[in-house]
């Protein structure tokens, strides 16, 4: 089987700081991949390079067998890479419904026969809201939702894009334990139709969901293995797990 996503020698510096340093990385279709590492390890920068929010200094990114290194972000999204922001970035003044509708509207432009149908749009928006448990908040202004619900709205917008690769940047940060349980179920469900790349601090979430775990430290990927092997890995324990998850 060929990987859905590969990076080779992917690098990005900020001034003198090597935020991402020659990372080789592969994700298989259908996989749930967790990316862990201490704050400042370069995780957000790494996935930002993948989705095109920021440009790479060196290296190459392939998605579905195609070189996407030089594609602008919006074209990567159209190829099926959806990104949910670490710092919640919904349209605060618009309703939850309108937030998701913007995502649905975009994906419907690719299928011209559905272009005119506002009923189809409504159906798809409500489906994404229902899957994330937000359907009774459709009319609420996004900025007035609780933090946890805003995180879910981010996920709903990602889902509405019908992505092949869904990148989630610390989605459980700030969620309650009960919300996290629901969230794990949601990711399992999403993974039936999409590959998931999950940056996550909560080790319980990682251990329950991930097929493989990649560990970042100081811009480098220092390990890449199954959850059990990662737990036993002395290098990882030293670099990260030993200190306990930092928030």
């Amino acid at each position, binding site marked *: 089987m060929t990987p859905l996503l590969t990076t080779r020698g992917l690098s990005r510096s900020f001034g003198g700081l090597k935020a991402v340093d020659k990372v080789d990385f592969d994700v298989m279709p259908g996989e749930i991949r967790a990316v862990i590492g201490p704050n400042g390890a370069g995780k957000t920068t790494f996935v930002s390079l993948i*989705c095109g*929010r920021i440009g790479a200094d060196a290296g190459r990114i392939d998605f579905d067998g195609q070189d996407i290194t030089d594609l*602008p*972000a*919006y074209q990567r*999204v*159209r190829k099926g890479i*959806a*990104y949910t*922001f670490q710092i919640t*970035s*919904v*349209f*605060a*003044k*618009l309703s939850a419904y*309108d937030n998701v*509708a*913007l*995502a649905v*509207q*975009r*994906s419907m*432009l690719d299928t011209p026969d559905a272009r005119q149908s*506002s009923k189809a749009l409504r159906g798809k928006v409500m489906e994404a809201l229902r899957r994330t448990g937000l359907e009774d908040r459709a009319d609420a202004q996004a900025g007035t939702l609780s933090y946890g619900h805003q995180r879910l709205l981010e996920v709903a*917008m990602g889902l509405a*894009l019908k992505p092949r690769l869904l990148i989630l940047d610390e989605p459980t940060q700030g969620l309650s334990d009960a919300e996290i349980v629901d969230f794990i179920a949601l990711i399992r469900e999403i993974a039936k139709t999409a590959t998931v790349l999950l940056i996550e601090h909560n080790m319980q979430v990682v251990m329950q969901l991930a097929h493989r775990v990649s560990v970042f430290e100081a811009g480098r990927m220092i390990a890449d293995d199954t959850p059990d092997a990662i737990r036993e890995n002395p290098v990882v324990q030293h670099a990260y797990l030993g200190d306990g998850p930092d928030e």
Partner: protein
Amino acid sequence: MSGAKAISLHVAVIILLFALNFLLPEYHHGVLARVMVFAVFAMGYALLFGYAGLLSLGHSMFFAAGMYGAALPVLHLGWSAPLAFVAGIAAGTALSLLIALLALRTTGVAFMIVTMMFAQVFYLAIIYFSPWTRGDEGFALDRQARIVDLGGNLVDLTNPTARYMIALLLFTIALFTMLRVVTSPFGRVLVAIRENEERTRMLGYNTFANKLVAVVVSGTVCAAAGAAYALLFGFAGAGFASVQYSILPLLWSLLGGAATTLGPALGALFMYYLVDITSGYTSAYLLFVGILLMLLVLFFPKGILGTARDRWARWLP
């Protein structure tokens, strides 16, 4: 689809304006014809400023492109008014495309400054080419050129009623185009760009292309207003390309509600009478205008209709 309520309101406004043609005394009839043309200018501006969130300080150049694009061929080539009108619009489209390609490399304050600089260049070019443009003094259009042959019917643009009706027709087209655009998927993308451009891009939208279209539509509508002004009122002058005419549509939009369809027109009407009435009483009228504007911004921060929408009528487009 925009709501039935919204459409009814817009139709009612047009019917009211039509009725006013028969009711208004001569002076106010003339004012309203002029204000309707300015309102088209205001709407073109507000589409970009209010909906896409791009604050331009150079829109006088699009108004003037339409004005001179229409008036110069009449003056030098003896073109008829309808043809000149098309030429004015084409000039605005071409200029706005060029400006969009250059100015959209910037955002925020830089965009304001870049658009202002281009408008200044445009203004100075009009002055520089005074032998053809008659510079600051401007020029009046030949009366003969303003009598239009519409399928055998002669329409005299110097006739107040003809002038009013043509201004109303242009206003109607602009208003319903605006209503259509802002309630379309494209309009929603513009609002999304205004609210959070990076998020919009990460939903798969080419934000540059959307902004480009917004600038061109905006510039074209403003040029249509400029061309209509030249042909209806028979005059073109460099004053219309000056900074003042870049600030005015901004004030009109702010006053009436920049992110509303009817607000910019209301703002233009309000401002016209404000200046008209206060200048009749005192030479320090700009002071009063300034104070009133400040009060309005304090109590109606989103403009008259923008604030009305927030408080009473959420359905206002």
